[in-house]
């Protein structure tokens, strides 16, 4: 489906465009972080210890304070260190959990939801768009009016409504790195928020369908499609062989950019408390909101990671657009 020519122009673009390369590196590092979270996280992200809560990131100050504690039945004065240290380089949250570890684990949820929701949206959106654009007529009218209805509502509203209707369904799958014994002392399961993924897909596919339809309409009037029809080629085959390969580029570019908005929707949902897991960037931002005045790093660190991922994806989208845009002719006839 992706031709040699496409591959060549992608490579060329990657070599000549430094900014795009940065985008690819940013995104790849997020993916690596998500994949190898148990190995990369210095601590168990769920390990709580109130004696070291609200530690600022290293080099960001903090103080040693004297508090009274009941130890062995006696009231004693102890010195609690709240100075940022290399043990918790990005500080700790209100329960003393390591912010860096939590953020590394948070990448898993974001990236998992983003990619699986995009896969679902791509399959559904492309199919609907292709059928709608290629067949036209009443099929097109019915499908596109439905798409318009979905587009008319704010994405967050529909996802919230769906979560409200179907409840929060999550599947825990064992973390292969922990189960296989490679890493110990980390959460043994990885939570896949099914409802959220499907709810987000249900608002993203319409964008894909819109673009796919437009591309299919343009492609179906090409002479090679007419030529294929003169051979008696069936419609499904024409869609698969001729329409889809010539429509896929703008769809992929849009999909890349939509991945960024999925990450933001996912974070918003987690922020509102619908994450299904508490290892999520949005969840941490929401939890840190109460301490913004004193412990700014709780919301800032996951927030920065969202920014970095979204910027990385957008740069990748630009790269794809520049490399694949049919408007930019390279060689050819």
């Amino acid at each position, binding site marked *: 489906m992706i031709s040699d020519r496409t591959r060549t122009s992608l490579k060329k673009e990657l070599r000549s465009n430094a900014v795009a390369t940065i985008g690819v590196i940013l995104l790849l590092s997020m993916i690596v972080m998500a994949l190898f979270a148990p190995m990369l996280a210095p601590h168990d992200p769920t390990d709580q210890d109130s004696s070291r809560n609200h530690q600022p990131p290293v080099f960001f100050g903090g103080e040693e304070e004297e508090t009274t504690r009941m130890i062995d039945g006696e009231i004693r004065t102890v010195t609690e260190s709240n100075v940022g240290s290399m043990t918790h380089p990005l500080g700790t949250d209100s329960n003393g959990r390591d912010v860096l570890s939590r953020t590394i684990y948070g990448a898993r949820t974001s990236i998992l939801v983003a990619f699986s929701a995009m896969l679902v949206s791509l399959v559904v959106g492309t199919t609907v768009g292709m059928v709608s654009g290629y067949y*036209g007529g009443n099929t097109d009218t019915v499908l596109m009016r439905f798409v318009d209805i979905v587009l008319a509502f704010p994405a967050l509203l529909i996802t919230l409504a769906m979560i409200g209707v179907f409840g929060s369904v999550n599947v825990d799958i064992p973390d292969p790195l922990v189960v296989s014994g490679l890493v110990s002392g980390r959460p043994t399961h990885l939570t896949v928020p099914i409802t959220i993924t499907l709810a987000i897909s249900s608002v993203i596919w319409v964008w894909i369908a819109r673009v796919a339809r437009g591309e299919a309409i343009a492609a179906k009037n090409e002479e090679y499609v007419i*030529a294929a029809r003169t051979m008696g080629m069936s419609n499904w085959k024409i869609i698969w062989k001729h329409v889809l390969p010539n429509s896929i580029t703008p769809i992929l570019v849009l999909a890349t950019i939509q991945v960024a908005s999925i990450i933001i929707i996912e974070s918003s949902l987690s922020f509102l408390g619908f994450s299904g897991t508490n290892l999520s960037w949005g969840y941490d931002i929401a939890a840190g909101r109460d301490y913004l005045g004193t412990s700014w790093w709780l919301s800032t660190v996951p927030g920065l990671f969202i920014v970095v991922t979204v910027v990385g994806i957008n740069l990748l989208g630009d790269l794809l657009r520049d490399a694949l845009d049919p408007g930019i002719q390279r060689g050819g006839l």
Partner: protein
Amino acid sequence: MTPKILKVRDLTTRFFTDAGQVNAVSGLNFDLGQGEVLAVVGESGSGKSVTGLSLMDLIEAPGEITDGEIWFRSPQLADELGGQKEKEKEVVDGEYVNVRAVSPAIRQSLCGTEFGMIFQDPGAAFNPSLTVGEQIAEAVECNKRLDRGDTYGLLDLIRDILSPKSSFVSSESYERAIELLDRVDIPDPIDRVDEYPHQFSGGMLQRAMVAQALASDPTVLIADEPTTGLDVTIQAGIVDLLRELRVETGMSILIITHNLGVVSEIADRTAVMYAGELFEVGPTPQVFERPANPYTDGLLGSLPDFDDPNARIEPIPGNVPNLLAHEMPSGCSFADRCPKATEECAEINPPLEDLTEGDDHRVACLHAETTRRVAELSVESPIRADSRVDSGVTNE
């Protein structure tokens, strides 16, 4: 005489646009003999291409073939379908099958296996994301599938998506693609077969397109302006190729063009179209040397004469009329540009009639020496115009 392979009767194609109804092709009648090359000529907008598309059943909304029959000679299919009637229309007449009346599945299979089509713009007629060989092989596969009576349904599509290997063409079809490329004189077909369309030159792509059309061993090849946009030497090559193929395979060719040079090179018979109607049809030498219709005369007169380079080129004044139904003249559509036009031309739309001299030469003009007119003149009918209206002349 050779048997007719295709008989077109009253073919009418209309487009229902926002601006009104466009009569792109109105009541076309012509025959195509076995192994014959028929050229359809005319200015831009005369309905030539729509005729070709109508024959292939490729008219899409807002267009529609509103009337007419396309009889294709296929004794085998006629036997199979004998006696069937669909929606009050005759499906079979002797050895002929009405392509317009058979079920969509049969029509698709008939168009796919018996008819081939080549297009004007070879650059656009190949999918830029597949190799040329793949596309020709695909045509071979498609033809095999139609011969087997298979249809490619949703299940096949899902299978292709799940296992990309199954959607590859078989090596047999691939070999055949190389053979076909070799047949149309593409050098190094074994290397060329794996190249993408943008690696081919325009002339080579046109040849490749002929190869693709040959994949189904068509009985009728419809060539829609096959030489437009190619330079003269390459045009000559394509014309030679078509001529060779005709002799070799015995197929009939319907060539749609406005290049009269190509017509004189290749066509046995020539049909002149104007404003969606057939103005004159006959053996090419007769049409060229003794055009019976003033339009044909004008068309030939607007060509430079190589024997007499100083002769003036006489263009036909004016333009092809707008084909919108409510703006069409009620009489002959050429009347307002015709040097011979008289008052009755503006009122009566002349039917296509046999010419007195010559075999199989027919013309639609009130001033031509048609057999009927000569007969009428000899009787010396006093009220000629009225009697003509009564004698079944359509006046739409």
